[in-house]
């Protein structure tokens, strides 16, 4: 008796979880399939999920309606630059905070930590003015440089990992005559690869999806990132829902594919660090 009751509650639980999963993925399915319909199908009652027939040309239409290809290239190289920049500068600072004794070390580290409390929305106006004075507004530098050179979160995350590496390792290398850079580059970096991978994923998703900074810093369409291009697309084609759905699909698909391939590392990396992508 007991086993039957147990199975029944398990079954109920699975049904519930399937229902919730459906709510989580239904908007994506609706987006993808609506993007392949024509307008009459989209307003059809009763609605059907699948297009009949399929309007594959919608993809081509939205790709040509806006320079999405340019936006892709922009987003890709901006995000990759920031990831590379953060990996280098954050790991250097984290190594110093964890393994080198220098004056004001703890004070400076506390300063880094306290910056985690400051939302970017609070400093956006002065940042805008600074970037304007540098002549970087409406260039990709306005997005790449600040994020490459500063991430309190990245420094904090990597420092945690450097702290876990035994002292003996660097000290014996030091006795053998290795300098700090060699210790950092040859010994430490290979040991914190999992943390570097986690930081890469988080930094990549965060910058790829960022909307707030591009919408403020960029003004020329040629320089737009994917989310910014998509929001402009929405402004222009607000009544053509098929085009908006195929445009959204185009914008989302690459990240979703990467996510499906790397989901374990992405979820666990983000869970481990507790930061939003």
């Amino acid at each position, binding site marked *: 008796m007991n086993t039957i009751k147990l199975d029944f509650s*398990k079954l109920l*639980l699975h049904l519930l*979880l399937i229902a919730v*999963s459906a709510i*989580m*993925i239904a*908007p*994506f399915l*609706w*987006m993808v399939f*609506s993007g392949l319909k024509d307008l009459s199908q*989209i*307003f059809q009652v*009763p*609605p059907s999920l699948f297009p009949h027939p399929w309007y594959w040309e919608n993809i081509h239409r939205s790709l040509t309606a806006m320079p999405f290809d340019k936006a892709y290239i922009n987003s890709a190289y901006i995000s990759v630059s920031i990831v590379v920049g953060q990996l*280098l500068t*954050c790991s*250097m*600072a984290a190594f*110093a905070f964890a393994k080198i*004794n*220098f004056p004001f*070390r703890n004070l400076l580290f506390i300063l880094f930590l306290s*910056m985690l*409390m*400051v*939302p970017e929305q*609070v*400093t*956006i*106006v*002065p*940042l805008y*003015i*600074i970037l304007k004075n540098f002549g970087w507004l409406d260039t990709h530098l306005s997005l790449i440089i600040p994020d490459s*050179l*500063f*991430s309190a979160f990245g*420094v904090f995350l990597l420092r945690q990992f450097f702290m876990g590496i035994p002292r003996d390792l660097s000290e014996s290398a030091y006795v053998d005559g290795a300098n*700090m850079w060699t210790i950092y580059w040859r010994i430490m970096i290979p040991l914190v690869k999992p943390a570097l991978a986690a930081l890469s994923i988080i930094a990549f998703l965060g910058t790829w*999806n960022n*909307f*707030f900074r591009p919408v*403020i810093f960029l003004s020329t369409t040629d320089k737009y990132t994917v*989310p910014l291009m998509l*929001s402009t697309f*929405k402004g222009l084609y607000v009544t053509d829902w098929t085009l*908006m*759905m195929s445009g*959204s699909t185009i914008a989302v698909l690459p*990240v979703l594919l990467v*996510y499906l391939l790397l989901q374990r590392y*992405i*979820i666990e990396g*983000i*869970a*481990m660090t*507790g930061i*939003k*992508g």
Partner: protein
Amino acid sequence: MNPKRSNTIWGFVFIAPQLIGLLAFSLIPLIAAFVLSTLNWDGFGAAEFIGIDNFTYAFKNPDFQKAMTNTLYFALLTVPMGIFLALLTAVALNNVRMRVVYRLFFFMPVVTSSVAVAIVWMWLLNGDFGIINVLLKQIFGVQGPQWLTDLKLVLPSLAIVSIWKGIGFNMVLFLAGLQGISRDYYEASMIDGATKRQQFWRITLPLLSPTTLFVTIIAVIDSFKVFDTAFVMTSGGPAKASYTMVYHIYELAFKNFQFGKSSAAAVLLFVIILFFTLLQTHYSRKWVHYAD
């Protein structure tokens, strides 16, 4: 060169790039935000020192009041519900087979661009043609509301989108917390004859409380920063019914070029976020249990 001096030099060499970044793009802007909040400045001409006028202006400004009440209301709508649902799904998933598959679906909205999410939900929630209202009519025969153009419904609608997008993130944090609870507690309590319900209230929930605190703090901060969905889905409307604090900061600075007034609003947002964060950590002593 003695090793101490060499360490000092290496230390500063290694932190130099991040230290420059910290100063130029975070600390100086933060201080500048406070300075700007005391100025009357449009970004072009001369700046004039006006003391706390921007702040007194903010409190009298109906736009600021609207943005503040909307933001607080939005936080109230999203935080408790979002956390409750995330905890519920995490507990449901904790001992279930195929956990990884469910987790994959739940987390999908988290990695998706907020702009794309906003556009898709604009369509789903469209009062006339949106699939949600079409289904309501088809299945229940009810005429669904104008989700995004009704003054009273627009913020709850945005809250639904926000909860949907964030649930997987909070759930994954809760799952990590649940996995960290030692099985010994459950085994020991089982020997003592505890029921499942008692185990949940007496073991799971208290031992999960550090995670809950962390999730709550992040959720509150996040809800105060709502911008993307309101910008894309409703442009703050109708009649400023979804106009939020960050939207207000954005509009003052980059539409009206009132850098001083915008910075005053930003400083107030910062103070409020700080206040709520400290409040939560302060009261956490009463309900957060750390396993030792």
